[in-house]
Every structure is written in structure tokens, then in C-alpha cells.
């Protein structure tokens, strides 16, 4: 081992600060209310604003209000998968135990928002486009993302030895990350029925501010909600794995004693 730490080593040290489950649990307890309450307040505010007080679209009418659920879910479907990919790198390269547990917990939440995105999109497509579904590049790539989530959920839980499951699922998540730029740029690279992005980094948003603000509030609220659910699930997961290791540790002499005791008792 060299005397001066390499970049990978230093990065590893930084990531491993929070690999200690006790440290994570203490941080999680403090963090949880700061995620949950703003998430609830912002989501409710954004939804009430969007669904009841924002203007209807000049040609879509009130159907445009589906956007206030559809767009945040679409954003979270991709960002959630990005988080999964980051966890996978941490898991594969640095063998970070918390990243494995986080990947277990992000999967189902991400699958749920992706399903909501697809369902609301379908409900929106029928009255506006005239079809529930079309095999264009945007819709298909998001459907692929949904199946990637399902595959990840199944794979990470599919082995008796959890470490093997973590590894296989991390490889799947990283390979699937190729789908993220395809989703993002599908509406630019190919012609699709789905319209291009309204909110871009360059150029003014092609959306009236009266609709943009409630949409941004909804998106922020949903994002914090996603984080709150993942942190809550992760805390439960860390506690569960602690209990498991406690029960199966060699220090569990109690079992031998108990069985012995039971044996003695029986005798």
C-alpha cells in the first residue's frame, strides 16, 4: 500500500463515513422530519394550486392538470434510476454496505413512480392524442425503464446469499442506465408523438408561469417525498440487517444455552 492515499482511497474514505450503520441511523433520525414535512406541505400546496387554482390550457382545457402528477413522476422515475446507478457504482467499486441496502429500498419506490407516470400518461394521451398508447421512442423507453426496475427488484432479492444479489442487481442497474439518456433525448433524436421538453436549460420555458410555478412546487414536493420514503425504508432496512446479524452472529451463545437449557429442561 502506498503512503499517500490515492483519489479512489480518499473517495472511499468519504463514502465510508456513512457506511457505519449507527452513524447513518443517527443522521436518518434527524433528517427524516426535514424530508417528510416539507414533502407533505409542498405536495399538497402544489397539487391544490395546480388542480384548482391554475388556469386551464387554451386547447387542452382541464386535461392539462394531469401534468401536475405526470411530470413529477416522470422526473422521479429517471432520477430514482440515476440514484440506483450511483448506488451500484458505490457497491461494485467500494463495496459500500449502505449503498446495497439503499439499492434494495429505491427499487420498489422507483417502480411505483414509473408506473404512475405511465398510467397518468396513458390517461392523458387518450383524450388529447386519441390513443392510450403508441410505440414511440419516449413511451417505449420509459416502459423499458419500468421493466428494468422490476428486474432489479426481482434480482436483488433473488439469491439466498444477499451479497450475490447485490452484485448482480448492481450490474443490471448500471447496464440499464444506458436507457436514461435515451429517455431524455428520445424526443429530440427521433420524431415521436410525445412532445419535446417544455422546460430546458437553454431558452425560456414554453409554459405560462401560472402553470410553471405549481408544477415546480409539485415536483419539489414529490422529490422530497421520494427521498423521505427511501430514507424511512432504508432506516428500517439497516435496523433489520442489524437484527439479522445479531441473531446469526457467533456470539449468539444464548441459543446454545437456551437449547441446552431446553434439553436439560426436557430431560
Amino acid at each position, binding site marked *: 500500500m502506498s503512503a499517500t492515499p490515492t483519489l479512489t482511497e480518499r473517495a472511499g474514505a468519504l463514502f465510508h463515513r456513512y457506511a457505519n450503520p449507527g452513524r447513518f441511523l443517527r443522521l436518518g433520525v434527524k433528517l427524516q422530519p426535514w424530508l417528510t414535512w416539507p414533502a407533505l406541505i409542498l405536495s399538497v400546496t402544489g397539487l391544490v394550486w395546480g388542480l384548482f387554482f391554475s388556469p386551464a390550457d*387554451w386547447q387542452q382545457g382541464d386535461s392539462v392538470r394531469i401534468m401536475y402528477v405526470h411530470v413529477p413522476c416522470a422526473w422521479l422515475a429517471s432520477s430514482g434510476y440515476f440514484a440506483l446507478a450511483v448506488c451500484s457504482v458505490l457497491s461494485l467499486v467500494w463495496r459500500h454496505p449502505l449503498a446495497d441496502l439503499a439499492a434494495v429500498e429505491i427499487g420498489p419506490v422507483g417502480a411505483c413512480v414509473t408506473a404512475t407516470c405511465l398510467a397518468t400518461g396513458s390517461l392523458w394521451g387518450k383524450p388529447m*392524442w386519441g390513443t392510450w398508447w403508441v410505440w414511440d421512442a419516449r413511451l417505449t423507453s420509459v416502459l423499458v425503464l419500468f421493466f428494468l426496475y422490476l428486474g432489479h427488484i426481482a434480482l436483488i432479492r433473488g439469491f439466498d446469499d444477499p451479497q450475490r444479489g447485490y452484485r448482480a442487481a448492481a450490474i443490471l442497474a448500471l447496464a440499464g442506465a444506458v436507457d436514461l439518456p435515451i429517455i431524455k433525448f428520445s424526443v429530440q433524436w427521433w420524431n415521436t408523438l410525445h412532445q419535446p421538453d417544455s422546460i430546458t436549460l437553454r431558452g*425560456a420555458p414554453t*409554459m405560462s408561469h401560472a402553470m410553471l410555478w405549481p408544477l415546480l412546487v409539485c415536483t419539489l414536493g414529490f422529490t422530497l417525498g421520494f427521498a423521505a420514503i427511501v430514507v424511512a425504508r432504508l432506516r428500517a432496512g439497516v435496523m433489520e440487517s442489524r437484527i439479522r446479524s445479531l441473531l446469526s452472529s457467533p456470539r449468539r451463545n444464548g441459543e446454545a444455552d437456551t437449547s441446552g437449557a431446553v434439553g436439560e429442561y426436557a430431560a
Partner: protein
Amino acid sequence: MKRKTRRLWLVITCVAALGTAAGLTLSAFSSNIQLFMTPSQLNAKPPPADRTVRLGGMVVAGSVKRDRKGDTPINRFDVTDGQSAVTVSFEGILPDLFREGQSVVAVGSMAPGGGFMASEVLAKHDETYMPKEVAEALQKSGKWDPKFGPPPNAASWNAMTQKQASASVQGK
């Protein structure tokens, strides 16, 4: 610790290789991923009449003719991409968003006598969202006619409130 660096490079290499492979595959199949053909493509290389294709473009202003055969509405309209146009005929109910100047995707095949016979027409809406008042104000001011395509630069209208828009409509 050296192992970690090696694993990092392995992951980076694998992701880069996979990304390149995916990129090459997608660009090779690019024409198959397109949802629809444009009128120029259709006119340049008309597909055989028995092949179902999708045609996409903007409905030409003033080209829509609506008729009835019993209870079924019969529609004829031109679809253009700015360079070329194709006449589409469609028996059935058009989607609510269908109008002159709107983008549509028509599913069907080339008719033997020329033109395009659609079995399904889908409306494609663009990325602009605005309240009715703002749309009216833009049209009143002469900056935009929805029949001829998308609205002007978003920065010129997206901050306009409904009150301002209604006031400017009444002022004129």
C-alpha cells in the same frame, strides 16, 4: 486499495463500452425508431399500397373538408412538413385537438389513386402550455395565428398573467 481503483476502471470501461454499443445500435436503427414519415419522404419514395405507414406533419390551414356518409364523418385534409404536402382522407371521428395548424400523425396506407387513406388520426400537441386569455391576447395582437404553426418565442408571453392578457384583449 489498488483493487478498488482497478474495479473503478473496470466499471467505467464496461459502462463506456455498453454505451457505445447502445449508441451505435440506435443510430443504425434510427429510421426504424422514427414514429412517422414526413410528407417529403412519402412523396419521394411512396411505399406500396398494401403497407401500413404513419404519416406526420402539420394540417394545412384552409385544407380541411368535412363531409358525412350516413353517420360517419368523412374528413379530407392536407398534411405538410413545409416542403411537401400529402392529402389525407379519413372516415371517423377526429380527436378533440385536431385543428388547422395542429400537428397530426395519420396511420394508414397510400391510396391507389394517390393520396393517403388513414385508418386512424392522432393529434400531436406541441410543448407550449398557456391559458386561454394569453392565447387570445397573442392572436389579437397579431403576433400569432394558430392556423399557421407554433406560437412566438416563449419569453415574449410566458410571464403574461391572465389579467394582463384579458386587459390587452379588451383594450384593443
